[in-house]
């Protein structure tokens, strides 16, 4: 028996046209994503790792419909994204949400935390004003913030607290999948571990799947089940965390692993 993946990506290409000079002839396109395939199953964490320019964020954006694929298919819960009508797309949007890197720019500074969190519900016409307020309180509790945070503006919160708000907003529509695009990269180390703990806890409680886009191999090692290593628009290797870290097959993966600063001084004590 095979389980249907939540997200199935086949031979996805996202190319960006380049014009040479003002009104110039089109040059060779930038092949940000150039023929990648992977599956994301319910409740698991698939990490996409790579260096800047490898196409990992573009991949996430294509899945969310924020970038148009040049070719290839993205199936979400068995439906082809390209063939969807507006109603289907809305329904799919509810199932796949995103958490960005920088919580400062991901929140409207003039919108109260409560309004930010419930805006997705409002856009999708879900619930009454009262029920949305209740939902905001519930979501805030879920991410470890006080319910009275709802009335305050993002400026009153630290970076880590704002990232909790962004996560609460991503959870508002009860998604199956959250795309985490460098979701802990901008945070201080002590805050990073708090957010990683929160992500793990939410996954356990809600059965979320994460598409975890990151350049940080230590973080990925900690949180992921499977890893796809991207370089220059293609996946050079994918497999379980154990397989990738213990027995990397691609030269590039080995280079990445070797470059991680490691010292016996930092190894966990037995």
């Amino acid at each position, binding site marked *: 028996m095979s389980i249907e993946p939540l997200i199935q990506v086949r031979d996805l290409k996202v190319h960006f046209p380049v014009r040479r000079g003002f009104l110039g002839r089109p040059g060779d396109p930038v092949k940000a994503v150039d023929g990648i395939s992977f599956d994301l199953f319910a409740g698991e964490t698939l990490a996409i790792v790579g*260096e*800047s320019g490898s196409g990992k964020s573009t991949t996430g954006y294509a899945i969310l419909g924020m970038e148009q694929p040049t070719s290839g298919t993205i199936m979400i819960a068995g439906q082809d994204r390209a063939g969807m009508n507006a109603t289907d797309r809305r329904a799919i949007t509810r199932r796949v949400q995103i958490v960005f890197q920088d919580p400062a720019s991901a929140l409207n500074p003039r919108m109260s935390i409560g309004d930010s969190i419930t805006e997705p519900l409002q856009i999708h016409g879900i619930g009454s004003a009262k029920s949305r307020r209740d939902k905001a309180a519930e979501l805030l509790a879920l991410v470890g913030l006080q319910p009275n945070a709802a009335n305050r503006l993002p400026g009153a919160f*630290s*970076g*880590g*607290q704002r990232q909790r708000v962004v996560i609460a907003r991503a959870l508002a529509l009860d998604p199956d999948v959250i795309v985490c695009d460098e979701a802990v990269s901008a945070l*201080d*180390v*002590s*805050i*990073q*571990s*708090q957010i*990683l*703990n929160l992500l*793990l*806890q939410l996954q356990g409680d809600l059965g979320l799947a994460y598409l975890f886009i990151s*350049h*940080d*191999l*230590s*973080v990925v*090692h*900690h*949180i992921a089940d499977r890893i796809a290593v991207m370089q220059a628009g293609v996946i050079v290797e994918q497999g379980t*965390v154990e397989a990738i*870290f213990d027995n990397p097959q691609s030269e590039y993966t080995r*280079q*990445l*692993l*070797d*470059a*991680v*600063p*490691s*010292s016996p*001084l*930092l*190894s*966990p004590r037995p």
Partner: protein
Amino acid sequence: MTDAPVLEMRDVTVSINGNPVVDHLSLHVDPGETLALVGESGCGKSLTALSVLNLLPDVATRSAGAINLQGSRIDTLSQRQMDAVRGSRIGMIFQEPVASLDPLMRIGRQITEALRLSGPVSSTEAEQRAIAMLDRVGIREPALRVTQYPFELSGGMCQRVMIAIAMIRQPALLIADEPTTALDVTIQAQILELMADLRRDLGTAVLLITHDMGVVAEIADRIAVMYAGRIVETGPVNEVLGTPAHPYTALLLRTVPRIDGPRKKMLPAIEGIVPEATDWPEGCRFRDRCPLATEICAEMPLLAAKGTESHRAACWHSDRVAEVA
């Protein structure tokens, strides 16, 4: 010749709006050694570095203490006198290499500009030295690169150019503020290796500002951990990382996921957030977040020797640090 420290800061305080954000900080960097100043955002580590350079932002003022460079005071110098120190005796590199370079100036000129500041030099000689320096920092085709602009170079190459600019006058001290934070991991490894090479060849002392214990373990000789404007622990890297004597250091070390650590487990978290300078508690500033805190922590602990004379920590409960992580 005596082995006077290259940099010695004594009791330096930096205030913003009357609130000390760097609070009676003392540190020293010996010839040829790398001291890592480690802490999270807002702990005052960058302001500490800027105070050495006399480049504090307008809102910040240095109100006490003394700063010595190679045995003579520099904190009393005027900005004009400091111009002769910055670049020639203290080199600087920052986190954002691309933003640190002038986008409208060719690479070669940005390097020779530094040279020309230190005295007359012919343009041919300046260019030759720029090319040689680019070659030294590992940039291929240096003769081509000097004619290019920053946008034509990658982030890693721009950081090499920054290092070339900082090192071309062979300063006694290099201040590197998060030099690899904005770089990809493979590039970070190359830059760290380059910094270690240069230090070995030229004997430059390095004050490295970072939040990354991985980087510290890789290239630092000694470490000073900052929390809320004060150094809470300092000592040789192997001692501090091996047997931390302050719970903040211990938690910082254990809270970061490790490539060889356990997976999918809750990380030992440091609860709460770094307090603002206006909300620092009396006594030990970590005590609100500290699992070991007791009544005595309401009194400020001094930076006292732990085990060896060079390994110091400001904690009443150093003997119980092994319990926290």
